[in-house]
């Protein structure tokens, strides 16, 4: 579904990503784990077009994403949940969801989608008229996921959904990801919380200072000595 080949990205003279190749197949949950500054977010931003690559290719369902404007990517049914809960704080929960359905012009369809999201996240329904900035961290993350689902994506890019959340909420969020996946949405998950990410993923890539060092089946990686030592604190 998504194939990245020999991708290199730099910020000025600093090379952030060196020749990274990875692949996400239809129906998988793939996680990309790594420490702070390894370049995980850079890869996601390059996929969505927020950052331009130096070389390499990104193919999504046969379309080259490199020449695309970030706002066009969502029309290919790929939704991005940005890092750090990028919601619209001064807009209400409903307005946030409506912005997520920006590319849908049909009003009834938007209403229908909204209903689905509220069914999945009853907490958001309770707070539908509330300003998004006044929600708790976990609710904001739910809203960010809900907003991404408004466009009926086939693939979801999640950037550090566990960031700044309590362990209990992290569990909730990962359950949500699992549920979303069950409905047939492919997920590319970028995480620092390697333990949680590996537990729900099919496959994983480990990113270290811009290079992919380890890759394989998520269960195997959970028992991999190097991964254990570096990321799982065991």
């Amino acid at each position: 579904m998504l194939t990245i080949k020999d991708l290199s990205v730099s910020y000025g003279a600093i090379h952030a990503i060196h020749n990274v190749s990875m692949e996400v197949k239809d129906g998988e949950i793939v996680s990309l784990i790594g420490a702070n500054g390894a370049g995980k977010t850079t890869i996601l931003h390059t996929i969505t077009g927020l950052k331009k690559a130096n070389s390499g290719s990104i193919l999504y369902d046969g379309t080259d994403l490199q020449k695309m404007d970030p706002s066009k990517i969502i029309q290919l049914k790929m939704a991005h949940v940005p890092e750090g809960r990028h919601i619209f704080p001064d807009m209400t929960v409903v307005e946030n969801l409506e912005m997520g359905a920006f590319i849908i012009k049909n009003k009834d369809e938007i209403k229908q989608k909204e209903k689905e999201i509220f069914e999945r996240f009853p907490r958001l329904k309770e707070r539908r008229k509330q300003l998004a900035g006044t929600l708790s961290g976990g609710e904001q993350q739910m809203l960010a996921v809900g907003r991404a689902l408004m466009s009926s994506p086939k693939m979801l890019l999640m950037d550090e959904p566990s960031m700044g959340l309590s362990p209990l909420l992290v569990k909730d969020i990962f359950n949500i990801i699992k549920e979303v996946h069950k409905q047939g949405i492919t997920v590319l998950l970028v995480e620092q919380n390697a333990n949680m990410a590996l537990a729900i993923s099919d496959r994983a890539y480990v990113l270290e200072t811009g290079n992919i060092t380890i890759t394989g089946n998520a269960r195997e990686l959970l028992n991999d000595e190097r991964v254990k030592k570096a990321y799982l604190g065991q």
Partner: protein
Amino acid sequence: MNPLNIKMPKEKKVSYVINIFGVLAIFLLLVLVFESNFLGGRTTYIKGICTTACYTIIMVASLNLLTGFMGEFSLGHAGFMSVGAYSSAIVTNALIGSGIPNFFLFLIALIIGGFAAALTGIAVGIPALRLRGDYLAIVTVAFAEIIRVAFCNFEVTGNGKTMSGIARLSNFYWVFWVMVVCVTIMYMFVRSRFGRTVKAIREDYIAAAASGINVTFYKVLTFTISAFFAGVGGAIYAHYMTAMIPTNFNFMYSAEFLTQVIIGGSGSLTGSIIGATFLSALPEAMRQFSQYRMLAYSIVLVLVMIFRPGGIFGTYEFSLTRILKKLLAKIKQHKSDDKEKHS
């Protein structure tokens, strides 16, 4: 996507009718004051202040679209105003003898002024809106200076001397309604899907882009609309002053508009109306101190920043409908209280 074609809910219709009556009442009051000669010899003078207030309202409200709703600073609004002023003046000078009634000539001037400024807005906006915050502010200052220097050197704009002899087409009654129409359109823009999209970009451009919003397009669109109304304001200015010099549209003038936006409340169009009205009437009312105007502005600005950081109105919109509703509710309450007393 014409906002006029959207089916209006009943409540909205009622609110529109109430506001139209409100505006009409103000207009009739002003007509009464001016026509009854109640002010005697000062009528023309007061009328002039009101005209100034009207085009200042258009300028400040249009700048508020940028600062309040898009969240970007522009310090070159007077530049767009001068584009509108000069282009419309050139066109009316060419058309003046051709027998077109004054009213239509004035409309043509407004439209030409608006479109000329809007085109400049697109030209400046496409490269400049890749920048954000302070950098954009610097570019807009530079733009206004370039325009000013260019107009100082073009022959058609008077070669740096005063361009005079422009037909006096602006009269208060027309200008008042032009202002009402402009503010209404801006208000509808802010309340529309476009307006909400622009607000989303202000709040988080990464999330906006991820939701499928073409950030650059909407930014340039807002910038262009803002420039259009600045051009309309400039056209009114040119045909009211009948003479102008490029140095009128200097940095201080742009800064004045920005001050008024901030004092009125960035994000509130009604705040802009109040801010522009008071701050354009104030220096006239205190004529003898008029050279201290900028000093007074800065003091007011500091005070506002200390006591009301969001401006006098903040993002609050003054609503006639809401006040009427509250009044009606009170009257009803009163009546039922009376009934209870009697029974």
